[in-house]
């Protein structure tokens, strides 16, 4: 689904954001992109959104090489990609429903499609009752759910999340991660850039670590860092807390583990 081949990106010719990065992400995978600030995570996401083009190397996404994409095709690429940010980026003067519907309106979807798909996705994120509220009337976690709903309403092939839990407390973050996990189970490829170590350790998904633009680790069922890897190893069941603490619809634990095994982790 996503392939980076020797991708290098520098800003103003001197700051190296990504150096010779080669990585393959299959359809349906859930990947954490970790590393300290300035390690190149956001550049990775921006390259996938085609907000930046690499200095060298090639990127394939959803079967297309996106470096070759002409400018007018970029919007059509982005319709296959949902994106969630740390600061939610909701429109403050539109209701929850309108915020999600906006994503379909501006790509010219007809009204009846909007009328069926928006309630569906609001149900998925558990915000059916708040669909007429304004973003300002919601908690941070709820706002991020709206953002996820907006990113997912068009059923993208790929969902990108740049620090989706950066503004949220651990418990709320967990809810968002569970939501991303559910979306992943529909077959959507999910890439989450984060430095939320606890979350990464609990989820035990593939981890790609960047350090000053260089890919230093690519580990299936990984943890955030070397230190936490030791800690988690000592703590016994790594996935336990995810289901114990989380409110709302339960993640199917068996299915979760089964999937891990299928991935050969």
């Amino acid at each position, binding site marked *: 689904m996503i392939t980076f081949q020797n991708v290098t990106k520098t800003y103003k010719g001197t700051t190296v954001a990504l150096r010779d990065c080669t990585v393959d992400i299959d359809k349906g995978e859930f990947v954490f992109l970790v590393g300290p600030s300035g390690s190149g995570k956001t550049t990775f996401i921006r390259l996938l*959104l085609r907000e930046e083009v690499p200095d060298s190397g090639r990127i394939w996404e959803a079967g297309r090489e996106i470096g070759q994409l002409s400018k007018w095709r970029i919007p059509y690429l982005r319709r296959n990609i949902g994106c969630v940010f740390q600061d939610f980026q909701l*429109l403050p003067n539109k209701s929850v429903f309108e915020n999600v519907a906006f994503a379909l309106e501006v790509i010219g979807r007809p009204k009846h499609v909007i009328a069926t798909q928006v309630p569906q996705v609001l149900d998925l994120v558990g915000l059916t009752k708040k669909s007429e509220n304004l973003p300002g009337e919601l908690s941070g976690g709820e706002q991020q759910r709206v953002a996820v709903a907006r990113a997912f309403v068009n059923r993208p092939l790929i969902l990108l999340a740049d620090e989706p839990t950066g503004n949220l407390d651990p418990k709320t973050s967990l809810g968002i991660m569970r939501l991303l996990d559910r979306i992943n189970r529909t077959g959507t490829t999910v890439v989450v850039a984060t430095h939320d170590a606890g979350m990464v350790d609990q989820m035990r998904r593939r981890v790609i670590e960047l350090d000053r633009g260089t890919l230093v680790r690519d580990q299936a069922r990984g943890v955030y860092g070397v230190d936490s890897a030791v800690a988690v190893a000592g703590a016994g069941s790594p996935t336990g807390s995810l289901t114990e603490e989380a409110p709302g619809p339960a993640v199917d634990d068996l299915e979760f583990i089964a999937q891990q095994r299928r991935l050969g982790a």
Partner: protein
Amino acid sequence: MPVSAGYVAREATSNLWRNRLMTVAAILTVAVSLALVGSALLLKQGATTATVRWQQGVNVIVWVDPGASGVQNQAVHSQLMQDPLVKTCTYRNQAYDYAEAKRLLPAQEVAATQQSDYPSSYRCALFNPSEATVVKQEFTGKPGVNSVEFQAAQIRTMQNVIHILQWVFLSVAVVLLLSASVLILNTIRIAIFARRREVSVMKLVGATNWFIRLPFMAEGLIQGIIGSAVAVLVVLGLYWGIGLNTAKTVANQGSLIAQMSMSGWEVAGTCIVVGLVGIGVGVVGSAFAVRRFLDV
């Protein structure tokens, strides 16, 4: 992807309303500058109908007797060409003069005549226009010459004044049109800034570039159209207000306004030009703003 006209109109008008003070300023500037353009065009057309025989430096007209023989006509021509006071001469046949008379003279005067009643003519430019009286004396009474007419000093003065006025109007109008474009550009820049969140979300979810641009372009277009509509009203007000629509009659031949009178078609032409320039200013202003400030 088709962009719905309803969507574009809705977005554009809501933008205009949100930013109405700047919008009014832009529309008024467009209106004032286009009213000046329109007045300059009216003035030019009026001057043209009033002084059509004296255009392009014609100072003297030698009317050839309708009954003059070919030889006489030829003689008049060669004398004119040899005259040291005369710079150039153009021959106009009877058909031309008949058509011109139909255009310039009151209808009831022309109705009783036909083409063969009209003289052909030589339209001459002199090296020195003030020597026209000498040429008149020279040629009056020559065989084949019906009469000699020359451009009076007042007509020359009037032409000059109108010419200068026209240029003043047009250059003021150009400056105002430039500032109108800048004002439109600025209103759209503010609109883009006010909606930067929407724009970034639209880009993120894959709205096409034209889908994002069109409402802003439409906004400029609407300002241009409203401005030029006001200017058209001013032009029409001038046309009826000062009586440029008065038909020429034998009675009012002496009046300058009546001499400058023009048909409704000519005014319609002026209005169309004013409208097109207004639309152009709106589109250019908004296109610049969209190119410069909307990064799509």
